[in-house]
């Protein structure tokens, strides 16, 4: 085809040159006899043909230039312009321009060409110049494309004009084209066909009812009939639209359809309604309607019902509901696969087998992809949880006589299903707290220059492997003095103790903590923010609080995207492996014996001048054996606290699929789960918040700060 195309282009170029010579000859004749009509048509025809060919073969420069001169000669032909000497000169120059364009079809028109074009345009009236060059089809294509996907069912009634056969049109081919557009059923109406003595065999007596479901839009249907539309009867109606789907698959009653199509009248219908038989049958028997009309209406009913049923079924299929235990099973399997893959990689590395290594790499890549995809299935947007609180905010603020508006950002942020489920309660408490303690009464707000209406904003966004969720209000902010007073009253802190803002704020998360003197109905019935703390700990997340007195409070929860997989740091103590969530790890340092002795046996470490308590995991987990000469300390951080964990060796980063421990191990303090390593051995996952609590409890006396976290 390409070769063919080149041949055609060569022929076109030759042809165009010949046409130009013809035009030039005729121009010279015209110069001699300005009224020579034959010459004028010959010139017009020559330019017309060049334009047509140029358009066909993609020479747009030639087409647009020739279009102008063709228009001039059309006007000359119609007597609107009288050719003068100057015009003939310009025309001859135009021929040269076109000839150049044929030689270099895709070069930009030069100055000379533009000058000549300008002089040509002087002969044309203004409107003529802007008439579009032949390219109006692309626009249409865009609109039809936009309409794609939208499945619409049309009722088409087509009655061709009687003489349609004589124009060479076969109506059945038009029907076949409709069939190509989509699912289609059609029935011919033959009642107009006369008997043999009256029939004109060359006349079309047939009309059609067509029901067509297509995504191509009404223009595609009209396009089928474009050549016969003006003379024929064509009615296109929409009877079903996937954009505005009917609620169920029921469709109009037979009588309704027949009336709508004017096959029967309302009176006809009423006259048969009393009968006990099917309406269609009765109507036919009484001769009120042609059987074909009834069949057509029945077809329509059946077609639409089918389309609607399919749509309902398709809706079901595009969203499958799966019991979550099936998903969990999948996650477990992926976990095992990741484990086996790690073993494979290890084995391959150990054997120094390059072929096996490359297979292992491939498996690793696929396993990672499978893992990510599986985790993705478990992700849900947090928006549904957010919107649950709208009602709560409304009811609660009304009850408390406050005016509160809740806004949300990042409702489409996705996170693990389990995380979302476990987050619902903590968020509820935080929001309650905002309304109860944060947002002031409208009058108070007004007097301090704020708007009567307070705002609570829920905000979510991804941040690396974590999700940030913020609950902020523009209320009165936290009262540090009140918190401190309450805390010392409860004995959580000792008077005179120096605390950072973070430390003070985190006091509100301790069990049973409340600063309001009289507990309200809403919050402060013993169920405090410690619930939030516990839930976030469970989710391996952390909480930070920012607050400005009088301006509001922002509580930020940082949570892992998923609970099933963590990035961990693999360490050993004796023969045992442990995994620490990498998100809590701050740094690794060596434990130098000298420093240990300097602190006189107290478990305090000096990290760049800062006192950090540490615990020996060997002791914590009662692991026998002698520690190595140089131990490692992994400094972990949780909330605002730092603690060192002493281990034998730090092996490195390790991506871990978490397996829950059986109930026997539930009481194991400081362990949150287990994982299986590449070589098949088990590593325990450390529960950092728990360990921190242990460490802090042990060291509180010497450190002189004690508060319950």
């Amino acid at each position, binding site marked *: 085809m390409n070769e063919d195309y080149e041949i055609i282009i060569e022929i076109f170029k030759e042809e165009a040159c010949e046409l130009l010579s013809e035009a030039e000859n005729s121009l010279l004749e015209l110069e001699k006899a300005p009224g020579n009509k034959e010459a004028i048509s010959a010139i017009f025809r020559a330019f017309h043909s060049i334009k047509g060919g140029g358009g066909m073969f993609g020479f747009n420069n030639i087409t647009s230039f020739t279009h102008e001169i063709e228009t001039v000669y059309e006007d000359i032909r119609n007597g609107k312009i009288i050719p003068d000497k100057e015009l003939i000169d310009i025309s001859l120059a135009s021929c040269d321009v076109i000839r150049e364009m044929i030689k270099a079809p895709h070069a930009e028109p030069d100055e000379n060409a533009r000058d000549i074009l300008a002089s040509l345009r002087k002969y044309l009236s203004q409107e003529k110049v802007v008439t579009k060059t032949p390219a109006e089809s692309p626009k249409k294509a865009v609109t039809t494309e936009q309409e794609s996907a939208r499945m619409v069912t049309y009722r088409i009634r087509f009655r061709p004009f009687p003489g349609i056969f004589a124009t060479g049109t076969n109506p059945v081919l038009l*029907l076949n084209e409709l069939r190509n557009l989509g699912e289609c059923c059609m*029935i011919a109406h033959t009642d107009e*066909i006369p*008997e*043999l003595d009256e029939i004109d065999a060359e006349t*079309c007596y047939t009309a059609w009812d067509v029901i067509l479901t297509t995504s191509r839009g009404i223009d595609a249907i009209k396009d089928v009939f474009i050549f016969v539309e003006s003379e024929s009867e064509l009615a296109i109606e929409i009877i079903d639209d996937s954009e505005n789907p009917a609620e169920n698959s029921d469709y109009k009653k037979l009588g309704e359809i027949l009336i709508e199509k004017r096959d029967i009248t309302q009176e006809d219908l009423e006259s048969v309604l009393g009968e006990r038989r099917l309406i269609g049958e009765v109507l036919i028997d009484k001769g009120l309607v042609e059987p074909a009309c009834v*069949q057509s209406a029945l077809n329509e009913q059946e077609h639409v019902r089918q389309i609607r049923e399919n749509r309902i079924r398709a809706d079901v299929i595009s969203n499958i509901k799966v019991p979550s235990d099936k998903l969990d099973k999948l996650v477990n399997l992926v976990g095992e696969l990741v484990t086996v893959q790690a073993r494979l990689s290890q084995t391959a590395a150990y054997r120094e087998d390059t072929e096996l290594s490359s297979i292992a790499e491939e498996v690793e890549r696929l396993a990672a992809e499978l893992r990510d995809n599986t985790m993705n299935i478990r992700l849900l947007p947090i928006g549904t949880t957010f919107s649950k609180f709208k009602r709560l905010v409304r009811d609660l603020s009304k009850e408390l006589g406050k005016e509160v508006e809740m806004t949300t950002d990042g409702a489409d942020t996705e996170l693990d299903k389990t995380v979302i489920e476990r987050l619902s309660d903590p968020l509820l408490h935080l929001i309650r707290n905002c309304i109860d303690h944060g947002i002031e009464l409208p009058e108070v707000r007004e007097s301090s220059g704020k708007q009567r209406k307070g705002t609570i904003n829920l905000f979510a966004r991804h941040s690396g492997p974590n999700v940030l969720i913020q609950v902020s209000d523009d209320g009165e902010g936290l009262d540090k003095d009140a918190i401190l007073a309450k805390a010392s009253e409860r004995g959580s802190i000792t008077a005179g103790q120096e605390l950072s803002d973070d430390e003070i704020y985190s006091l509100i998360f301790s069990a049973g903590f409340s600063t309001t003197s009289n507990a309200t109905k809403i919050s402060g019935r013993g169920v405090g923010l410690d619930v939030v703390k516990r839930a976030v700990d469970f989710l391996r997340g952390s909480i930070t609080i920012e607050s400005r007195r009088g301006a509001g409070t922002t509580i930020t929860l940082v949570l892992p995207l998923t609970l099933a997989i963590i990035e961990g740091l693999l360490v050993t103590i004796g023969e045992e492996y442990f995994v620490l969530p990498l998100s809590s790890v701050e740094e690794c340092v060596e434990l130098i014996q000298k420093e240990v002795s300097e602190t006189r046996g107290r478990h305090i470490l000096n990290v760049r001048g800062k006192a950090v308590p540490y615990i020996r995991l060997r002791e914590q987990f009662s692991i026998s054996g002698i520690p190595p000469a140089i131990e490692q300390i992994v400094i972990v951080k949780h909330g605002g606290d730092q603690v060192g964990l002493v281990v034998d060796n730090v092996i490195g980063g390790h991506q871990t699929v978490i397996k829950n421990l059986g109930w026997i191990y539930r009481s194991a303090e400081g362990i949150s789960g287990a994982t299986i390593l590449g070589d098949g051995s088990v590593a325990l996952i450390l529960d950092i918040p728990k360990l921190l609590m242990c460490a802090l409890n042990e060291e509180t006396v010497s450190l002189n700060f004690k508060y319950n976290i």
Partner: protein
Amino acid sequence: MSDFKVTESDGGGEIVLSGSLTIKNASKLRTKFIDALMKEDNLSVCIDADAGVDLSFLQLLCSSHRTALKLGKSITLRILAKANFLTAVENAGYTRRRGCARDNNGTCLWLGDRP
């Protein structure tokens, strides 16, 4: 130049139609049907295997059937290449579950897949 053929069987009451049974021969075909119906009380129309039909021919068959009904005669189809013919009937939307109002004795030529 007529590229269709009508053969009358001797005494069998059947005409065999072959070739282009289409619009350009429609007028001539009409005459053939009139002649045949004049002669036969129970006319059988055989559509030959090589026959090509179009809408105009289907209209003619319909018209012939109606004429037969009025004259108290009968007309039946005998199709030698069913698939081709049925495709043409279906494409034209002529297939029926029930004959037209004039078909008082259920002899409509387009009923179900009877042809």
